[in-house]
């Protein structure tokens, strides 16, 4: 299955029955898969007039208590920021997919990781965070999309799957999770479904005219974010324990990094390990700091001009040197380039033989 299709099918299996979206390459197969299959499951697919509308339809549907999803690519994700900020304020759960392409502006169609800042640092106005999950294979993408709906509901928070077009277009075998019946999902007593016999009305809202009230909302949000940090931080390592050097990479870039690491281990006999953040927010700062402190140096590889590297530097806090190699604009680093970058970092961070 293609990564895009795997994510779409996993969402349906997670009980998602509402999809609102707008076409943009390289995400369109996800949209088209939903258009083709949502109705079979009694769900609704709607092509909105813009990403602005799509995300606001998601807002309405999420507020009405539904499992709902949208998917887009970078320029569309920019347009969704308004709605995402409102969803953060109103604490609405939903799952979004951003298949990142090169920017800024109209950019290009090739894979990139240059929306990292926008995805992990808020993106829209106000103090808020999305849970950001970055799969590195179609299988993991399907698994994370499936789980993302539960995470979103648990915290009443938007969960973003940050993908790239290598992942979205890759064709790999995928084992799909079992279908879940939306009727069996936990109730959402806060949803606006009509007052019924309730005395009080339910209101989905992010307006607080009194500063103290808005402060209270923000306090509550920040407490929630601390809870998410404690409970939802995800990462994966390969050969990182006891490694002399660490490479940090996420998404498809992590697969390229792994190939490079294997090559230098084989050819140079160096102990280099991979640290792969899966949740980009919450960022796995503590486990990374622990590993980094036991190493001689860290190299961050990205398909960007250097965005996640800032979080790595914050995590490492100067304990060891942090180097960066990245390419952006849709140019994917070659394994050979990654190998060279690792060798450079090793040379620069290894004690000079004369000082041993």
């Amino acid at each position, binding site marked *: 299955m293609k990564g895009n299709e795997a994510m779409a099918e996993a969402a349906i299996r997670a009980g998602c029955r509402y999809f609102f979206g707008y076409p943009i390459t390289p995400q369109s197969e996800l949209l088209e898969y939903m258009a083709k299959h949502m109705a079979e499951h009694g769900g609704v697919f709607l092509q909105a007039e813009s990403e602005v509308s799509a995300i606001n339809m998601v807002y*309405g549907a999420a507020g009405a208590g539904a499992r709902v999803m949208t998917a887009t690519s970078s320029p569309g994700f920019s347009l969704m920021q308004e709605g995402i900020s409102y969803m953060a304020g109103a604490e609405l759960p939903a799952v979004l997919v951003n298949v990142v392409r090169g920017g800024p502006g109209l950019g290009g169609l090739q894979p990139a990781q240059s929306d990292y800042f926008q995805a992990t640092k808020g993106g829209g106005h106000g103090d808020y965070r999305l849970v950001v999950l970055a799969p590195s294979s179609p299988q993991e993408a399907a698994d994370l999309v499936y789980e993302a709906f539960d995470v979103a509901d648990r915290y009443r928070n938007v969960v973003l799957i940050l993908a790239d077009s290598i992942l979205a277009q890759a064709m790999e075998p995928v084992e799909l999770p079992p279908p879940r019946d939306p009727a069996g999902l936990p109730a959402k007593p806060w949803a*606006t479904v*009509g007052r019924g016999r309730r005395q009080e009305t339910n209101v989905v809202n992010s307006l607080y005219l009194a500063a103290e009230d808005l402060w209270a909302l923000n306090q509550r949000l920040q407490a929630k974010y601390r809870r998410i940090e404690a409970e939802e931080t995800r990462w994966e390592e390969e050969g990182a324990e006891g490694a002399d050097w660490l490479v940090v990479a996420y998404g498809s870039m992590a697969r390229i990094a792994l190939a490079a690491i294997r090559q230098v281990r084989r050819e140079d006999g160096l102990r280099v390990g991979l640290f792969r953040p899966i949740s980009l927010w919450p960022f796995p700062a503590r486990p990374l700091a622990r590993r980094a402190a036991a190493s001689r140096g860290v190299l961050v590889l990205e398909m960007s001009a250097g965005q996640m590297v800032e979080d790595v530097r914050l995590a490492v806090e100067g304990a060891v040197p942090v180097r960066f190699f990245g390419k952006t604009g849709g140019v994917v680093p070659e394994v050979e380039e990654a190998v060279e970058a690792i060798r450079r970092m090793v040379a620069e961070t290894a004690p000079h033989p004369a000082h041993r």
Partner: protein
Amino acid sequence: MHPVFEPTSGLRADRVTHYCPGCTHGVAHRLVAEVLEELGVLERTVGVASVGCSVLAYEYFRVDMQEAAHGRAPAVATGIKRVLPDRVVFTYQGDGDLAAIGMAEIIHAAARGENITVVFINNANYGMTSGQMAPTTLVGQRTTTTPAGRDPVQAGYPIRVAELLNALDGPAYLARGSLHDTAHILQAKRYIRRAFQAQIEGRGFSLVELLSSCPTNWGLEPVEALAFIRDRLVPQYPLGELRRPEGVR
């Protein structure tokens, strides 16, 4: 004795609205609430409040409500209605909200024939942000951003929303009423009722445009403001039903 006035259970009796004295936003609220009550649908209605003077509408209506971003109410209502097709879903929007920033959302909701009802308050300016030009501001009308009066060469012409939407196939019901005197208020209520009726019968998109006063920003006494609607707004925005499906009474 026959009661002259009774509160509607569609509005919360424990709330005092923040609207300015003489503003007909309050009348529009009352009409919508009465209609929902009379149709017996208060318990299965979900409203969408927009950004503008009516931003706090969810504090006043006794129905579940969502607050939408500026202009996006029709998209939010679409999301709600698609999840809850058997509920009554309405938006309450001003002219800045609906005809400027939210023009794409309203046109496409109407074109889709989305089975929702839109209550559209046309007061020919941006009330909440203190009286700037709206798309509906009359030629020559003074606002804080057209201090010499709206000059169409510089600021374009007013938009007749009901007529604009009437060019589409999607809408089932379109009408324009006015809130400037009792007779017109009663007529507006009939329009609102038919709009909701159309939705309940599943006929598709319905919108009622209501000419409404803004004495504060027009710089007029409340009574003068009603006369301004009658004498200035009505000629530009003719009243009546533009589209009404067969069988909706």
